[in-house]
C-alpha cells in the first residue's frame, strides 16, 4: 500500500523530467527495512526514469503536460495540428537555424527558411533559403501594398535599444526566431495571402535582393495604391459590424496592455524574491557549520532553498521569453488591424463621395458611371475580405491565447513541482517528509 501511495504521490505531481536521487536517499530508504521500500529503492535509483514510466493505469498525466525542455516545440506542433481543420495541407514553412554573419559593414543574423509544398505555384517540392529580418520587413510591406484589404500578421519589433538588449544573445535570437516562424505560418494558413507572389519569391528566390530591385519597378508600374488620407472624410454610417470590431480592438489592446504590465511587474517581483532567496539559502549553510546534530537538516534546508531559486529563475526566464513576446505581438497585430479598418473607412468614404457627386449631376441618371461602380466593387470586396479575415483572426486569437495562458499556468505548476520534489528528496528529510507530504496530499485533495 505504501508503494502504491508513493507512486500515486509522484504521479499526481505530473510529468516533469527525470528524477534525480543520491545515495543519501537510498541509505535512508534502506534503513526503513520494509520490503516494499526495496522496490521503491529500485526505481528511485534509475536516473533516467521519467515520470511517464511511473504512471499507473488509473492515474495519468493530461496530454497537454509536456516536459519543460520541449514544451515550446510541442506547443508549436500543437498549433500546426490545430490549423489542419481536416483539410489536407499542401504548404509547410519553418524558420530555424539562426546564424551570425560578420561583414565589414555590419553584423547580422540570418535564419533558414524551409518550404515544402505540392502547390503548382512552386517549381520544386522543397526549398531552403536564408533570410534576415530586413527581408521579412520587405515581405510584410509588399503584402500590405498588394493585399490592402487583408489583415497582415505583425512582425516582432524592428528596433532594439542597442545598449539595453543584446541583439545577438541566444535568448533574444530565439525569441525573434519564434516570432518570425509564427509570422510565416500565419501567412501560410491564409487562403489568399499564401498565394501572394511576393510570398512565393520570399520563400524560393536564391537572391532576394535582385528581386527587391525588380519589385521597385513593379511598384511604379502598377501605381494603384491606397493612399492613406489623414482625416478629412466623413462616413454616412459605418456598418455596425465594423464599428463593433473597432471598439473591440480598442478595448482588447487596452486589456492586453494591462496584462503586459502586470506580467512584467510579476517578473520583476519574482526576480527580487530570487535575489533574497539567493542570500537566504547560504545562511543555513553557515549555521550548519556551527552545529553537530543539526548540521544535516540545516544543510538540507539550504539545498532546498537553492533549488527553489534555480526553479524560480527558470520560471522567470520562460515567462520573459515565451509569454511577454506573444502578448506584445497581439498588441501590434491589433494596431495594424486598426489601420486596415481605417483604410476600409476611407474606401467607403470615397465611394460615398463619388455617389454624392453623381447624384448632384442630374444628367448621368439612371445609369451609374463606371468609376462609381468600380468604387462600389472595391468597397464591397474590402468589406468581404475584412469580414472573413476577422473571423479567422478571432478563431486564431482564441487558440493562441488558450495556448499562451495554459502555458503560463503550466510553467507555474512546473516551478512548484520542482520545488516540492527537491524538498522531498533531500537526504535527511526524504523519509519524514515523504510520509508527512503523503498525509498532506491526501488531506488537500479536492473532493472527487
Amino acid at each position: 500500500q505504501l508503494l502504491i501511495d508513493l507512486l500515486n504521490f509522484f504521479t499526481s505531481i505530473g510529468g516533469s523530467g527525470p528524477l534525480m536521487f543520491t545515495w543519501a536517499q537510498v541509505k535512508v530508504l534502506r534503513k526503513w527495512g520494509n520490503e516494499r521500500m526495496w522496490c521503491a529503492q529500485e526505481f528511485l535509483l534509475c536516473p533516467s526514469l521519467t515520470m511517464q514510466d511511473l504512471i499507473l493505469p488509473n492515474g495519468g498525466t493530461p496530454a497537454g503536460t509536456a516536459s519543460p525542455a520541449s514544451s515550446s516545440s510541442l506547443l508549436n506542433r500543437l498549433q500546426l495540428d490545430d490549423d489542419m481543420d481536416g483539410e489536407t495541407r499542401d504548404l509547410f514553412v519553418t524558420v530555424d537555424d539562426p546564424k551570425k554573419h560578420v561583414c565589414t559593414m555590419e553584423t547580422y543574423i540570418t535564419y533558414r527558411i524551409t518550404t515544402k509544398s505540392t502547390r503548382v505555384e512552386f517549381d520544386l517540392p522543397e526549398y531552403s533559403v536564408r533570410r534576415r529580418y530586413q527581408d521579412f520587413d520587405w515581405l510584410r510591406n509588399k503584402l500590405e501594398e498588394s493585399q490592402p484589404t487583408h489583415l497582415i500578421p505583425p512582425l516582432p519589433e524592428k528596433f532594439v535599444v542597442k545598449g539595453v538588449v543584446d541583439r545577438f544573445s541566444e535568448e533574444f535570437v530565439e525569441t525573434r526566431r519564434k516570432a518570425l516562424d509564427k509570422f510565416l505560418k500565419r501567412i501560410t494558413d491564409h487562403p489568399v495571402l499564401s498565394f501572394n507572389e511576393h510570398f512565393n519569391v520570399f520563400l524560393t528566390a536564391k537572391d532576394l535582393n535582385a528581386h527587391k530591385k525588380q519589385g521597385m519597378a513593379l511598384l511604379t508600374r502598377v501605381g494603384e495604391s491606397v493612399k492613406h488620407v489623414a482625416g478629412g472624410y466623413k462616413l454616412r454610417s459605418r456598418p455596425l459590424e465594423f464599428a463593433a470590431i473597432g471598439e473591440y480592438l480598442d478595448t482588447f489592446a487596452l486589456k492586453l496592455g494591462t496584462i503586459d504590465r502586470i506580467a512584467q511587474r510579476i517578473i520583476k517581483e519574482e526576480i527580487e524574491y530570487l535575489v533574497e532567496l539567493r542570500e537566504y539559502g547560504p545562511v543555513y549553510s553557515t549555521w550548519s557549520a556551527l552545529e553537530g546534530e543539526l548540521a544535516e537538516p540545516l544543510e538540507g534546508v539550504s539545498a532546498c532553498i537553492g533549488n527553489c531559486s534555480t526553479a524560480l529563475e527558470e520560471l522567470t526566464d520562460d515567462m520573459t521569453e515565451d509569454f511577454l513576446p506573444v502578448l506584445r505581438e497581439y498588441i501590434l497585430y491589433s494596431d495594424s488591424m486598426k489601420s486596415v479598418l481605417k483604410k476600409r473607412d476611407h474606401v467607403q468614404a470615397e465611394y460615398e463621395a463619388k455617389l454624392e457627386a453623381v447624384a448632384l449631376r442630374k444628367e448621368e441618371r439612371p445609369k451609374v458611371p463606371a468609376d462609381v461602380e468600380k468604387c462600389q466593387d472595391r468597397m464591397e470586396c474590402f468589406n468581404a475580405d475584412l469580414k472573413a479575415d476577422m473571423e479567422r483572426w478571432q478563431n486564431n486569437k482564441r487558440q493562441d491565447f488558450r495556448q499562451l495562458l495554459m502555458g503560463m499556468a503550466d510553467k507555474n505548476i512546473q516551478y512548484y513541482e520542482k520545488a516540492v520534489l527537491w524538498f522531498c528528496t533531500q537526504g535527511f528529510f526524504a523519509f519524514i517528509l515523504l510520509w508527512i507530504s503523503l498525509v498532506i496530499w491526501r488531506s488537500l485533495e479536492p473532493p472527487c
Partner: protein
Amino acid sequence: MEQAAPDPERLLQPAPLEPLSHPDAGLESVVGEEAKGARDEGHGDGTMTESNFSLKKIEISVSEAEKRTGRNAMNMQETYTAYLIETRSVEHSDGQSVLTDSLWRRYSEFELLRNYLLVYYPHIVVPPLPEKRAEFVWHKLSADNMDPDFVERRRIGLENFLLRVASHPILCRDKIFYLFLTQEGNWKETVNETGFQLKADSRLKALNATFRVKNPDKRFIELKHYSDELQSVISHLLRVRARVADRLYGVYKVHGNYGRVFSEWSAIEKEMGDGLQSAGHHMDVYASSIDDILEDEEHYADQLKEYLFYAEALRAVCRKHELMQYDLEMAAQDLASKKQQCEELATGTVRTFSLKGMTTKLFGQETPEQREARIKMLEEQIKEGEQQLKSKNLEGREFVKNAWADIERFKEQKNHDLKEALISYAVMQISMCKKGIQVWTNAKECFSKM
C-alpha cells in the same frame, strides 16, 4: 486534593515540551509525579527553593491579553497590556482540571521574575522572554507594541516562557516563581525584598573579568564563541527571512491584478469569456492565500527567535564563570603576594619593591616588635586567605559542574526543538507548493475551456 502536606516535593521531569504550540490548544505543562525521597538542598546563598507545590499536576496558560491604562512611576497616564495567567491542577484519577489560580501580570513583571532568576541561578541557562519590541518586521507586520498580532504572538511567547521555567528541574521549585503564579498583589515587593538587585554582579565588574581572566575553562571559551556565532547567524537569518517574506508577499499580491483584468477582458469576449472569468477568480484565490502562509512562517520565525535570545542566556552563564574564575585568580594572586611579603619580613630580604622597603630606607628600620606584629597579622590574613581560596575553588568547581550539566540539558532541548522547527518549516513549504499547484491547475483547466 492534598494541601500543605509535609514536604510534598514535586520533581518535575524535563518534559518533552512543545514550546510554541497553537494558541487555541490549551497548553499544559505535564508534570510528572514527585520522586519520593528526592530532597532539594538549599543553596548556600539563601535562595528560596522550598517547594510549596502541593499539587500533583499543574497546567499553566497565558490565556488572555488586555489593554489597560494606569499611572506609572512618574504619575503619568500610560497604556499597557496585561496578561491573564491561569494555573490549573489536574487530578490524576479523573483528569479534570480545576482552576486554582488566576491573576494578571504585565510584561515588566515577567522581566522582574527573569532578572531575579538570573541572579539566583547563574549556573542555569534561564529561558528567555519574547522580544520587548517587534524586530525583524517586514512591511505588513506592524512594529507597534499595541498591534493585536504582536500582542498575540507575545502572549504565546510569555506562556512558552512560563512553561519552560515550570519544566526545568531546578527552576520550577523556586518560591518566587510559585508566588508569581499565585500571589497577585505584593509580589513585586516580595521579590524586591530578597534584595536580589544588590546581589547582581555589576556589568562593569563582569566586563573587567572577561578581559582580565587568565585561565577560564576551555569549554566555556568554546561555548562563548558558539553563542556569539549562533546569535549572529540567527539574526542574519531572521533579517533575510523578513525580506524574503516581503518579496513573496509582493509576488502573490500582484497576481490578484490578473483577476480584475481577466474579468474586464471577458466582458468583450464571446467564447473566451467564461474561461477567462473563472481563471481570474482563481488568481484572486492565489493572491489571498499568501496571508495564511506567511502567518505560519511567523510562527517558525518566533521559534528561531527564542533560540536567538537563548544564546544571550548562554553568554550570561559564561560571563558568570569568567567572573568567578577571575575572582579566584585575584584571590590566589593576593594570597601569593601576602605570602611573599611574610617571607620577606621573616628573612629580612626585600626582593620586590614595596612601600615598606621604601619607608625603611627613608625612615629607618622598624623595631623587631613591630616586625613581629606585622608578621602575625599577615599570617592570620594568609590563613583567612587560604580558607577563602579553598571555598572559592570549591564554589567554582561546583559552578562548573552544575552549569555544565544544565548546558548539556539545554543542548538536548535545543537540538530537539530546532529539528522539529526545521521539519515543520519544510512541511510548510511543501504545503505552500501543493496549494500553488492546485490553484494553477484549476486556472489551467479554466484556460483550456476558452
